[in-house]
């Protein structure tokens, strides 16, 4: 007599054999069906262009962007020796350092303010978040006026205080800073909104409990708000970093990469290389370089940053 367990095992085997590959892959096929729309979209707009970019980065191209001569890694070697490219990298790194921490600190500060329970606070919340609804082009034009050397609002304030006006966008020392200020202003809306959402998600009782223990505002901020906000901050930092690396619109409108290439951020440099100089090969090589940079930064951030993050 075989035991019941053995019998069951045999039965299972019989059933499995009968099913065959077609039956067993049922789940996979179902999943694939659901994924199909996004797979198609991603392929057309993301995977294909990426493959093409990688391909082009190994070639010299004609003016139509067709691959002509295979040059291997020469495009990359050329880039690493090109002074303009190194300058562009330096400008991009500086730009990231200027915009990301400042933008997040300002947004955090505004979010903390807007979280207070005061009358009419909804008005301020809307105002602080409003830059999210303004396009890059529109806000750049606004700042173009503010930065105007003679009739710009900023220089007028400086003049009325008795100072010497600044050539915001025309002075190589100031231009990158000016573009950074514009960018910070534009990004605040989104960052503010996400951080405010994060703050409002924190259980009010935690603060009440701390209050009973006698913790002051800054103690609560340090020991409760910031740690509880860490996943939100992590998300916001990641998104801001990637955004900063990819900045294009405001550079195009405010400075066109000038003066003397001081604001020639990498994406703008790629654009110029490809569509002004028609060097699609080197432009592609730059794109791949940018992609690798963002990849490395993001991986590093996840590796080191995430340890300090507390998830619920």
């Amino acid at each position, binding site marked *: 007599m075989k035991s019941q367990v053995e019998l069951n095992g045999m039965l299972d085997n019989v059933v499995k054999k009968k099913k065959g590959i077609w039956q067993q892959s049922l789940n996979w096929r179902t999943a694939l069906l659901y994924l199909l729309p996004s797979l198609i979209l991603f392929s057309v707009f993301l995977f294909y262009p990426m493959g093409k970019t990688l391909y082009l980065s190994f070639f010299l191209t004609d003016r139509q962007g067709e691959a002509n001569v295979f040059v291997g890694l020469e495009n990359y070697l050329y880039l690493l020796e090109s002074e303009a490219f190194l300058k562009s990298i330096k400008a991009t790194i500086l730009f990231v350092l200027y915009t990301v921490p400042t933008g997040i600190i300002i947004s955090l500060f505004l979010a903390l303010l807007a979280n207070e329970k005061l009358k009419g606070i909804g008005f301020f919340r809307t105002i602080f978040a409003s830059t999210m609804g303004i396009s890059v082009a529109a806000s750049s034009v606004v700042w173009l006026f503010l930065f105007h050397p003679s009739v710009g609002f900023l220089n007028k304030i400086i003049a009325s205080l008795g100072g010497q006006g600044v050539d915001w966008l025309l002075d190589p020392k100031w231009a990158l800073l000016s573009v950074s200020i514009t960018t910070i202003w534009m990004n605040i809306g989104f960052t503010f909104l996400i951080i405010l959402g994060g703050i409002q998600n924190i259980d009010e009782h*935690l603060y*009440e*409990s701390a209050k009973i*223990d*006698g913790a002051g505002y800054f103690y609560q901020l340090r020991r409760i708000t910031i740690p509880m906000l860490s996943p939100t901050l992590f998300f916001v930092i990641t998104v801001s970093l990637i955004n900063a690396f990819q900045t294009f619109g405001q550079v195009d409108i405010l400075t066109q990469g000038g003066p003397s290439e001081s604001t020639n951020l990498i994406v703008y440099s790629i654009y110029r290389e490809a569509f002004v100089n028609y060097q699609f090969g080197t432009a592609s090589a730059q794109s791949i370089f940018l992609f690798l940079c963002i990849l490395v930064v993001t991986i590093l951030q996840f590796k080191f940053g995430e340890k300090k993050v*507390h998830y619920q």
Partner: protein
Amino acid sequence: MKNVELFNVSKSYEKQKEVISDISVSIEPGEFFVLVGPSGCGKSTILRMIAGLEDITKGSLRIDGNEVNLLPPSKRDISMVFQNYALYPHLNVEENIVFGLDVKKVKKFERKERCMEVAEMLGLTDYLKRKPRHLSGGQRQRVALARAIVNQAPICLMDEPLSNLDAKLRAHMRSEIRQIQRKLKITMIYVTHDQVEAMTMGDRIMILNEGKIQQVGKPIDVYNAPANPFVAQFIGSPPMNLATANINLSKQELSIGGRLKLSIPSNDLQSYQEDTVTLGIRPEYLKIVNSINTKSTNNYLDVKVEHVEVLGNETIVSFQLDTYRWQAKWNGQWNVDVGDIVPIAINYESICLFNSASGHLIKGPTQVENHIIHEVTV
């Protein structure tokens, strides 16, 4: 040990209707005081006012004789256990427990020592390095308790701390909290909506309904002589049975639905002015009549059983009396079927009578099964 007094305290949120009206009560030093009432009656609001997390709209709150209405929570010498525990999810158990000591800049060495002491008392020593989300509900509750105790505040406020636990753990924690309170001589103000917790834990209990005090007293007194029908039905399980009864002074008779008549002793006659009253009787005083000679008197009622619950050591029988649904509780297991006709006796001594308009208690039960241990052992 400190006392807490409320004088005519009222509370309304944003100039709306009062949610707490005119509460006056004095809580003795070292007392275990229980606030009990149905959901939304304002228990948490009272506790939060005592803690200073909510302003007092009217009236005054005194701790040790000093008015503290405007004192910030940290200056009131209290600790509080929140309904949802409010543990810091990003800190481990030890950090959670010593959070308050850290705020008060207690020395590191002493912090550790006090934490270990409390952890030992509550059986938390094995979990000190864990985050709250890796603890069971009961363990979290003990961490919340530890956090309150470690501060050594003389007054402790607890808001339904056991409501998330299973029945067994709840019973265990009831006695644990009570023992800690006795040992540390804390003045405890404990909120619950569970009448069993109120009965078993409190030195005194205060029953609230819709923001008003219904009764304050020792659990046993509240049980025996509820101040009004609300308290009568809130305390005790199954609740007290209620019905409208008529008083006929000339016949010295009390009748329920015209069917059951109880004679009123002449001593009691002068306390009844009204014709109709609300009669209440605890389910355990509804006795079954099983000998013929007691049947000869008038004070029994034949009722038709509608539902039976045998709980092992007791049996609960439900039946309809006029428009009211009544329940009787008998010791032991009874073999009763739905549809059976059962004779039930009601004793004048064991009933409560309430004024049918105001709800005030007119007469409490005089004959209670109140056993005293010395008498039994002699």
